[in-house]
């Protein structure tokens, strides 16, 4: 909760500086900011994200010294970085895996916000700025992935730009302006490089706004109960949370290092080590893992609704899945912030999280393939009968199928194929996609009204005392 500054310049220099540019005061106030003392480790991910952004910017600027944004040279320039530039392999691995780490942290950060009600009044703008950051991250990551100019880079960007082309009226123009030509090529690569360099700084700017907006009401906390008494409920950000965030950042870096040094390619695709060939499409085009849930939602809509084609509906659903996050503060009707005290909502939230992860798996697989088979494969014989109607007969025995096939006239156009029966990835995408949207559009609005929440603690200090079993009225332990 913002309040008057408590900084007092002590030395001659600091007094002089304070009268001209109060930047030390600004830093001092940030460090002294009263922060709830009961924050758990889910709250460390904001600091982790700031470090991720810094890592991506520094490693990216360094890579930009060696990368060449030209379709003839891009792939080779990346390999040159890996082989010839001193420590180039390290910096490239950091940047590529750093993007994945960035998204991992942002998803945990967002899930934290959803669980503890950090998006609720008066923190709606913090949440909305956060969704803006998320969108910018997705755009940055998408363009960054195009730069190595591998098969996935090229064909993945072709898929996404084609999707944008389905938007009515403006779609084709936007698509052409995005590509800089009739297809993905040199103009595209050059402008993607320029924008990819620019966007992280835009993200940094929005992050400043995000943190500024946070410092007005102050941090949320696991109880969802607002700070009542600054002395009893809060501690200064430094050193209490600088050291806790520092610890969490180091643990995060250990995981990051494991990927960079031991599994640098685990989160990527082998196909992206093949130089882009516009004439040959890879068997399965997939985006990076952090975009998979939206890819699943995109491909889940296979039916037209009225005049709107399935392809456009898929695009609308995909953008809708992100867009709905903007209005989350108004969809959740509950007066209680933290799901710690909303047992039903908490269970529904867990299902929602598993749906998101599940959608990720769906996005990685071909929608027509099977999650599991419900029976062993059989054979299907398709042919046109004497009236010209298509027929399909299922056989288990190959010889029987062949016998039937040889009895048919050549005009029947008989063909034999495998008949796999089971549960398709497509259906799983549709179910999980429905759960995703229902969470926002049905469960949250409904639960706020019908759920009876558990009693909340009177204050943060009270909840901490209860946890440690000390008497509420007695003075707080050894201060």
């Amino acid at each position, binding site marked *: 909760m913002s309040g008057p500054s408590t900084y007092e310049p002590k030395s001659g220099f600091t007094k002089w500086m304070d009268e001209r540019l109060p930047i030390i005061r600004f830093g001092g106030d940030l460090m002294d900011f009263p922060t709830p*003392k*009961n924050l758990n*480790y*889910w709250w460390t991910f904001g600091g982790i994200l700031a470090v991720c952004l810094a890592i991506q910017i520094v490693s990216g600027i360094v890579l930009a010294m060696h990368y060449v944004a030209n379709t003839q040279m891009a792939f*080779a320039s990346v*390999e040159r970085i890996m*082989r010839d530039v001193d420590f180039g*392999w*390290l910096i490239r691995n950091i940047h590529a895996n750093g993007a994945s780490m960035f998204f*991992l942290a942002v998803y945990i950060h967002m899930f934290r916000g959803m669980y503890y009600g950090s998006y609720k009044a008066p923190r709606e703008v913090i949440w909305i700025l956060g969704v803006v950051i998320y969108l910018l991250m997705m755009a940055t990551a998408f363009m960054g992935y195009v730069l190595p100019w591998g098969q*996935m880079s090229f064909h993945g960007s072709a898929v996404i730009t084609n999707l944008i082309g389905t938007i009515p009226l403006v779609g084709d123009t936007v698509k052409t302006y995005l590509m800089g030509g009739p297809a993905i090529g040199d103009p595209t690569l050059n402008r993607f490089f320029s924008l990819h360099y620019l966007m992280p700084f835009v993200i940094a700017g929005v992050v400043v706004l995000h943190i500024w907006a946070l410092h007005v009401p102050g941090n949320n906390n696991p109880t969802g109960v607002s700070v009542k008494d600054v002395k009893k409920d809060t*501690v200064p950000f430094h*050193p*209490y949370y600088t*050291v*806790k965030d520092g*610890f969490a950042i*180091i*643990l995060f*870096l*250990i995981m990051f*290092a*494991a990927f*960079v*040094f*031991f*599994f*640098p*390619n*685990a*989160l990527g*695709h*082998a196909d*992206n*080590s*093949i130089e882009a060939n516009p004439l040959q499409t890879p*068997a*399965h085009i*997939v985006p990076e*893992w952090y975009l*998979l849930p939206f890819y699943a939602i995109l491909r889940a809509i296979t039916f037209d609704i009225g005049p709107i084609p399935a392809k456009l509906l898929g695009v609308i659903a995909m953008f809708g899945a992100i867009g709905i996050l903007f209005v989350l503060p108004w969809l959740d009707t509950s007066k209680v912030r933290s799901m710690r005290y909303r047992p039903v909502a908490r269970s529904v939230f867990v299902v929602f*999280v*598993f749906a998101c*992860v599940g959608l*990720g*798996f769906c996005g*990685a*697989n*071909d929608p027509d393939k099977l999650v599991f088979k419900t029976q062993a*494969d059989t*054979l299907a014989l398709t042919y046109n009968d004497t009236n010209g109607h298509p027929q399909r007969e299922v056989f288990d025995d*190959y010889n029987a199928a062949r016998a039937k096939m040889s009895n048919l006239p050549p005009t029947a156009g008989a063909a034999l*194929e*495998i008949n796999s029966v089971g549960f398709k990835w497509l259906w799983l995408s549709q179910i999980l996609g429905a759960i995703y949207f229902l969470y926002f559009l049905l469960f949250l609005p409904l639960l706020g009204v019908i759920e009876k929440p558990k009693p909340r603690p009177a204050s943060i200090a009270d909840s*901490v*005392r209860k946890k*440690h079993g*000390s008497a509420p009225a007695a003075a*707080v332990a*050894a201060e």
Partner: protein
Amino acid sequence: MRLAKLALAGLAALAVSAIAIPALAQEHGPAAGGEAEHAASGGEHHLLEPKGGWPHEDYFGTFDQNQLQRGFKVYQEVCSACHGMKLLSFRNLGEQGGPFYDARYPNPNDNPVVKQIAATFVNQIPSIDPDSGDPVKMPAKTSDRILGPYANDIAARVLNGGALPPDLSVITKARHGGAGYVYSLMEGYVAPPAGLTVAAGQHYNAYFGGDTAASWAGDPRLKPPGGFLAMAWPLENANVTFDDGTPTTKEQMAHDVSVFLAWAGDPKAVARKQMGTAVIPFLILLSILVFLSYKAIWRNVEH
């Protein structure tokens, strides 16, 4: 501690997905460039492994320099007839960790073995005659790339029946299974099972990507694994004499060239793992120090 169990489950799920997503992804899959991911999804052949497996893929794995030299010789005498490695230069062969590294020549450009190897690749490098200005082909120097024998992709296709021999610089990163894929391919030229029609100019390989359904006359559920490729078994008539006296067998050549290509695709792998072996324990030590600092700071605050 309320959410702790759930948190652990969630993190476990995320960790599992980080590894499982690439594995589940698809059959001729992407993912897991060098780190020993065998073909995961059902329906695909498990890749072959030589005796002893792939030690270079271990956490502390290194390359045997003799094996790299043997593998390079196989490349030079068998594969370079059609395949280039244009993202490598000859001097890379003499770098630390490479097949011809010699501590007496820290600058690989001076390495005489590398110079000699480069010189054997005659008429390779497109250049300009300094006297007449005409385009001309020069013998390679150590600073030159290991270009393929063809002037461009069109020429390559014309001389190979329409098929383009891929560049081998990063082939082990570009194929699911890495060195295992190359090895399986070399060992996978088995006789096509009865009922499989092999088109003229094509060859059946049990480990090549693709679909044999269209050429299979039997039960579609029992279609043979693998696919067809334009390259005949390159080791069929190959008889590379190894300088270190290792007996020449088809399996030995397949093994050695796979390891050489794995090195070529990721020459910094050993250095990378060595640095990781220093960085991660350092970070663990640092985390303990910072944790103690954290505990000390919070000691007197009930939270």
